[in-house]
């Protein structure tokens, strides 16, 4: 993955607007969080291949970045994004990695199921 380029990601968000898309949304502290450090509270969630459609969306911040997608009846929001996959021309793959390179958060959109 590459470090996020704000303009290119915004362009990709625009190009997927108004279509029925498959969403993968995820956030995790890792299953070993409290094993390695008992002060940590392990938490995670993910939802994969649920269908969504947004009419308005943008990426914001100076890095790590935030993305908000406005749907007819709700929102999709992610904070802490650092990387994207530039070579994926049909999909939007965004991830946030911590200082050790571990994935903390992911937001992915695709016309086909993941």
């Amino acid at each position, binding site marked *: *993955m590459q470090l996020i380029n704000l303009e290119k990601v915004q362009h990709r968000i625009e190009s997927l607007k108004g279509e029925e898309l498959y969403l993968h949304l*995820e956030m*995790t502290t890792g299953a070993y969080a409290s*094993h390695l450090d008992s002060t940590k509270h392990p938490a995670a969630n993910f939802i994969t291949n649920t269908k969504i459609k947004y009419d308005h969306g943008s990426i914001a911040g100076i890095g790590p970045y935030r993305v908000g997608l406005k749907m007819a009846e709700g929102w999709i929001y992610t904070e802490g994004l650092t990387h994207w996959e530039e070579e994926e021309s049909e*999909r939007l793959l965004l*991830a946030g990695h911590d200082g050790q*390179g571990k*994935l903390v958060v*992911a937001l992915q959109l695709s016309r086909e199921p*993941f």
Partner: protein
Amino acid sequence: MREENRDVMSENILVVFPHPDDEAFTVSGTLAKHIEAGAHITYACLTLGEMGRNMGIPPFANRVTLPHIRKIELERSCEAIGIQDLRMLGFHDKMIEFEDQVLLDSQLDALLKELRPTIVYTFYPGFSVHPDHDACGESVIRTIGRLPQEEQPIVYCVAFSKNHQEVLGKPHVVNDVKEYLKPKMTSIEAHRSQFQAAELLGSKKLEDEEIRERYGWERFWIYPFHVSE
């Protein structure tokens, strides 16, 4: 504590773990030793570790490509150890504890019936930290527990939760695998999206005493199926 000295010639061994790389630190030296003695190893890996958090540094994998990358890493690790038979069962990473138990157990039961192993390696249920590890061990124990007693293999369990020694006591088997550090470290290094070899070895070599002590021992607890009988 004892060293495992059984005659393992032509023995069938089944290894069941949920994630590619679970084999590397825990059992790879022991397996290489078994293989050298003539054993046939089947490794049933329940998932492709597709929800892993490590993507390499810098990240060469992503959520979408990770399962493909980890599949190749797993194949390379098995090759390094000498494992003859790798089965990737295709369950979803992180979801083993929520999986249909009938489906999960039936796949393990089919493997046990096919291979008739005399030894099984898996995670000790309740003492293995990751929910997938515990659920994997539970399924193995459940399925073997249903076999007639004379058909039950010995189950060597890996345990590493904070309280494991408190409850389980000292390991029943401690294998000296210092002679097998080359396949072991090659197995670990095969999982390059997950571990940075440089981080593990630092500037040290395999011959270094500290490395030999850190990676040169593998510990197992025998699952007590028939304690009260």
